[in-house]
């Protein structure tokens, strides 16, 4: 008995299936290479991720799938577990880029040169990409846990480093707690609607006759609990406690990965769950909408103001990443294709920017054994190219042209103004000015201050050079030709809202 599986179902999962194959290949390859050539495992992962990236783009260009024209019923696959639409494609590509770039950056870190590290990176990527595609609460939960469990281990991976072990433990404790709270909320949703598919739940909740009005209180409770789980993933205040500690203690290349891919996956589920309307219609009339707006404002402000006082660059970047989540939430709360597209564009630019940034932090940290701000003193004389990469990345984070970050913020604020939320855009812009202070502080260290070791350039391997060059190329490319990319994400986000009409 062979089950009758449509070709499009298999094609939609081709990247994930390839990731599983790559995972097993990495384990096998790790046994075959000599201990002295362990860095080739990382190269294999990077090449594999690149090949899967090409495969995904190929399927999309040749087969025209997923297309934004496909109706909801046709884009739901595997018993409604996943939805193959533009959004899942955009996020899938993001995660593959993050995997390739992070493995390039980590392959020179000696204590991470193990097959297990890269295998767990791949498992986390698999979880993230299924999270972004999942259209069912059960699928969402399993995918989220796959990604989380891999991440806990990755954070504690450098077991000989006490800080890393501690980071892994803290990440685990906070993470396990947040997901069980989220799970309780999800079980209530199932109890009210008897469904687990997001779109079935959404249509029931939005159709006033199918569930009684008393359910609204239960729905709100479920919304708060589910937001706790998702907020943990995107490190939104007040679920951000873990962020600085994990960023400081975990291995730097993994921090680059978790700060971008994990955040993007969190936003993907945020966008999908809320636009499907499982807590009520996706507009500004509901209680949870006000809650999200408040979260966005507090997240931005707290992140930026605390970041000013940080001396350790990884902690500073942690608070900066909290603040960046706040900006991205503005796009989310507009609840429009423009806003969601802007959030996705923002995450895309943040991905290139932040992995490049953590790449430089890793190189400098490895050489100077310190990630305090003053280890960046005189970097422009020591390694001008690295300083340049860092400069562009910091400009992008603070939103200064000609980098991608400028358009990232521009599209978000424009979507907010178009949606009538000009005051929210204003808060965002004021925050961007505050952020300028601490980003430029690092630039000041690199270009104006001197250090005793200026004659010793920081060694950079070819693989890392290529990785950083490609990332910065995209930061600048998106900073000049942002239009087509934004059109792409905006059209993809349209899939969220097409079904409401």
């Amino acid at each position, binding site marked *: 008995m062979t*089950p009758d*599986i449509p070709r499009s*179902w298999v094609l939609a*999962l081709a990247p994930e299936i390839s990731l*599983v194959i790559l*995972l097993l290949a990495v384990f096998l390859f790790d046994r075959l290479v000599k201990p002295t050539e362990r860095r080739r495992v990382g190269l294999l992962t990077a090449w594999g991720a690149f090949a899967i990236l090409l495969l995904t783009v190929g399927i999309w260009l040749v087969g025209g799938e997923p297309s934004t024209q496909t109706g909801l019923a046709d884009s739901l696959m*595997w*018993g409604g*577990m*996943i939805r193959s639409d533009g959004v899942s494609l955009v996020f899938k590509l993001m995660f593959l880029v993050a995997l390739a770039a992070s493995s390039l950056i980590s392959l020179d870190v000696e204590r991470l040169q*193990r097959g*297990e590290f890269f*295998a*767990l990176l791949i*498992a986390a990527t*698999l*979880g993230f990409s*299924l999270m972004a595609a999942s259209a069912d609460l*059960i*699928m969402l939960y*399993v*995918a989220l*846990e*796959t990604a989380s*469990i*891999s991440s*806990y*281990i990755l954070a*504690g*991976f450098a*077991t*000989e480093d006490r800080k890393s*072990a501690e980071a*892994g433990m803290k990440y685990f404790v906070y993470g396990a707690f947040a997901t069980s709270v989220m799970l309780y909320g999800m079980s*209530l949703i199932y*109890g*009210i609607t008897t469904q687990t598919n997001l779109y079935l739940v959404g249509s029931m909740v939005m159709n006033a006759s199918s569930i*009684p009005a*008393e*359910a609204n*209180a*239960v729905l709100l*409770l479920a919304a708060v609990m589910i937001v706790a789980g998702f907020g943990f993933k995107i490190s939104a205040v007040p679920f951000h406690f873990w962020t600085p500690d994990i960023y400081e203690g975990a291995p730097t290349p993994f921090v680059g990965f978790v700060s971008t891919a994990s955040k993007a996956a969190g936003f993907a589920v945020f966008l999908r769950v809320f636009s499907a309307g499982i807590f009520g219609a996706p507009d500004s009339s509901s209680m949870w909408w006000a809650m999200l707006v408040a979260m966005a404002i507090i997240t931005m402000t707290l992140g930026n103001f605390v970041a000013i006082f940080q001396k350790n660059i990884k902690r500073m970047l942690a608070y900066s990443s909290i603040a960046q989540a706040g900006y991205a939430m503005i796009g989310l709360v507009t609840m429009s294709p423009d806003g969601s597209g802007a959030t996705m564009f923002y995450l895309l630019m943040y991905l290139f920017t932040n992995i490049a940034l953590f790449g430089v932090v890793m190189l400098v940290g490895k050489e100077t054994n310190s990630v305090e701000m003053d280890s960046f003193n005189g970097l422009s004389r020591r390694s001008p190219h690295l300083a340049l990469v860092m400069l562009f990345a910091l400009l992008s984070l603070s939103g200064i042209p000609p980098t991608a970050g400028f358009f990232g913020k521009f599209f978000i604020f424009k979507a907010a103004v178009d949606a009538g939320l000009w005051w929210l855009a204003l808060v965002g812009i004021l925050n961007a000015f505050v952020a300028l202070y601490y980003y430029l502080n690092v630039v000041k260290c690199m270009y104006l201050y001197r250090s005793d070791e200026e004659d010793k350039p920081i060694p950079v391997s070819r693989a890392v050079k290529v990785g950083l060059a490609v990332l910065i190329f995209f930061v600048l490319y998106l900073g000049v030709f942002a239009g087509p990319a934004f059109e792409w994400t905006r059209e993809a986000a349209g899939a969220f809202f097409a079904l409401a009409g």
Partner: protein
Amino acid sequence: MDPTIDQIIFLIVSILTLGAGFVVVTNRNLLYSALAMMASFLGVAAIYVLLDAGFLAAAQLLVYIGAISILVIFAIMMTRRLMQSTETSFNAQWGMGIFTALVVFGLFVAVIGNFWPLAPAAGQPLASGTAVPDGMLQDSIAALGRAFVSVDAFVIPFELASVMLLAAMVGAILVAWPKAEDEV
């Protein structure tokens, strides 16, 4: 209204489960906590039996009592020097903890009790388990098994769970491996 037999059983099991749960979160000796946790899991398994979910009750016995509790007790024994410490096992937030837990519980009771009535009249929906043919409940295990491997149901999360278990296994071995042999 006189309580029926299954209501009495339910109440006894609930009190056992919650009482054991209370010991888990309050006892200073971790080993007692772990044993109480096993008792609490046993109570939950009995609840599954009351809910006609025999398979899940068996899985609960195997996974929670058989595996997770043993794992926890191993971990406690391996870190046993800590159990001799006489200092308090609660952090400074315990007062806040009680407050939070009570507020959350009150909220749950208010919200859930409002939607699903606490003392419904006999005729009301959900006052008792939906009357279903015995065959359906007996068939539920087979239906569950089919659902796990059916392409129209849970095959993708099922396969993903296997990847997750692989990642967890590899990761747990790696993280817990003694460091002296790290270079081997």
